[in-house]
């Protein structure tokens, strides 16, 4: 007789909402007539993400005491719920951005093909977000690995979905190869940890380590190192970042926007969960490991960004350096670090998404890759998007226009609180370097001599396309980015309650 475990459907409601919507969108790809597919699938996706937000908020409210559900395979707690809410919000914004742009905006010449796979795209977007929503709540190494693959495989296909462009396919393949390499590393690490402790559940691992005195066990430490490397691949932290610029540049821009914000949120949130829950005894090791990765990311991300011309590549390197910043908070390995991490990710996700969304608008307008030359004059031609980009860039640089400023302050405070004043200095120096390339974009957008400014308009050949939904998504990102500067207290409270689910 098989006694199936009790399933707490409510705990899974966010995932189920997204999956359900994904299924409906997929059905739409078959059943709904082609001309209506775009509207249908986008509506379903928007509803799905809204449902996901509602579910995760509800879950947040109703999960004050965190515990594991469904045979201890999934965490129902506020850490999960808050991360799910961020992922769903990014997903909603991506949906708005994608309606006009995906897939195949470059196929304008042949309008009939613009709707190729549009419903499948939204289904994949929902599926990947569902994977992330599950990933952040994974409670054992198996669900961790599987949900990582779940979200990654959907992302690989999304990267490649603009398959009339070689760059898109190439990005998909590159991401697949490097992503799978990272997953395999994570998997081997999981196997070693399993072998050392005999368990795959996070708290059980911690328990086995303390009960059997394994904290110096070679297998365990090696496994931990491989697990960290695998997670660093996903969060595109140096030295596991090599794929990031190529993939971010080659993937369709809305997908890049989604990856740079949601994927990073999921990977970093989960990283802290795994390490704090399963390896508290190894904190002396992983805090150092993360500090090292953070320094490497900040150095490589910022220095490499200086010499780039392509705006998407610049933003990709910027996202590497921001992984470094978040890891500074993570490396503190304290409740304050957890709070800093969660708070940082909210404005960061908004700004990263928003900046790529603005790039998408320019790309669509001109039909060419957006470089520092082709973005010239953009600020004056499209005032709203220009100002928004201005806020995002200054915010990413950490100037006090957006919550990015407070986020940076928070992670530095967490590092100092942990006793790592040197990390504060590293963070400060990295910010200084980063200013140069963020300002480079602003300079290109606003300060080129007026004869250069006309280049953009000439290439566009007329008035910019109408894109109300894109403006809405950029506006939302802007509101979150700026609002998080003023609403620090409520957001930090949310983060505090979320971080209290972790055993610090």
């Amino acid at each position: 007789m098989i006694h199936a475990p009790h399933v707490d459907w409510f705990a899974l409601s966010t995932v189920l909402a997204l999956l359900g919507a994904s299924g409906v969108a997929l059905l739409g790809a078959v059943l709904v007539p082609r001309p209506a597919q775009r509207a249908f699938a986008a509506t379903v996706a928007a509803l799905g993400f809204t449902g996901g937000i509602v579910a995760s908020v509800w879950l947040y409210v109703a999960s004050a005491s965190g515990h594991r559900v469904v045979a201890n395979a999934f965490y129902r707690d506020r850490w999960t719920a808050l991360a799910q809410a961020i992922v769903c919000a990014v997903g909603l914004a991506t949906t708005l951005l994608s309606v006009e742009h995906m897939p195949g905006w470059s196929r304008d010449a042949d309008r009939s093909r613009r709707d190729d796979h549009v419903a499948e795209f939204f289904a994949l977007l929902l599926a990947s977000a569902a994977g992330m929503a599950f990933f952040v709540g994974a409670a054992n190494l198996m669900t961790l690995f599987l949900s990582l693959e779940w979200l990654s495989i959907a992302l690989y296909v999304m990267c490649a979905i603009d398959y009339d462009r070689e760059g898109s396919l190439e990005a998909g393949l590159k991401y697949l190869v490097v992503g799978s390499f990272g997953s395999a590393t994570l998997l081997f690490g999981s196997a070693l940890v399993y072998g050392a402790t005999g368990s795959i559940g996070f708290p059980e691992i911690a328990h086995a380590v303390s009960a059997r005195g394994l904290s110096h066990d070679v297998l365990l430490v090696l496994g931990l190192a491989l697990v960290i490397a695998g997670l660093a691949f996903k969060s595109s932290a140096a030295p596991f970042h090599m794929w990031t610029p190529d993939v971010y540049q080659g993937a369709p821009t809305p997908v890049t926007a989604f990856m740079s914000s949601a994927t990073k949120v999921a990977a970093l949130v989960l990283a802290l969960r795994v390490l704090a829950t399963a390896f508290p005894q190894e904190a002396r090791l992983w805090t150092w490991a993360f500090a090292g990765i953070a320094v490497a990311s900040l150095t490589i991300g910022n220095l490499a960004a200086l010499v780039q011309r392509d705006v998407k590549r610049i933003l990709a390197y910027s996202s590497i350096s921001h992984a470094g910043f978040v890891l500074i908070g993570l490396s503190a390995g304290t409740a304050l670090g957890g709070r800093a991490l969660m708070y940082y990710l909210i404005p960061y996700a908004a700004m990263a998404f928003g900046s790529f969304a603005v790039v998408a608008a320019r790309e669509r307008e001109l039909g060419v890759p957006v470089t520092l030359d082709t973005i010239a004059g953009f600020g004056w031609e499209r005032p709203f998007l220009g100002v928004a980009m201005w806020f995002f860039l200054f915010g990413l640089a950490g100037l006090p226009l957006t919550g990015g400023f407070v986020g940076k302050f928070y992670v530095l405070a967490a590092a100092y609180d942990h006793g790592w004043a040197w990390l504060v200095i590293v963070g400060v120096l990295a910010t200084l370097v980063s200013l140069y390339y963020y300002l480079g974009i602003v300079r290109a957008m606003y300060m080129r001599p007026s004869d250069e400014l006309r280049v953009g308009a000439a290439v566009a050949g007329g008035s910019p396309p109408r894109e109300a939904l894109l403006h809405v998504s950029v506006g939302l990102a802007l509101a979150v980015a700026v609002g998080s500067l003023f609403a620090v207290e409520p957001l930090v409270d949310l983060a505090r309650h979320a971080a209290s689910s972790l055993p610090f």
Partner: protein
Amino acid sequence: MLGPGVVWYLGVAAFLFGIGALGVLVRRNPLIVLLSLEIMLNGANLALIVFSRHVRGGAGQIFALSVMAVAASEVCVGLGLVVALHRRRLALDVDRLSELRG
């Protein structure tokens, strides 16, 4: 357990993982890269199964079975990409695809 101990199996697993990683890093043909990824996953699988026997728990074997499914999924998407790239009449040479070099 009769025969070789866990360590021997683990040696094989580690070797598989390492040689697979090497293949991914140095080979350029995407098909061979995908095959090398399979070897890496197989190395991890062997470790899981051996440990499953060693700790007398079921999780390792279940894990390994799931990994097989995942590996099949990766291959499915990876081969899809290879075919799509081939249709774009691109050389199947990761290094020659220089559009994204910056």
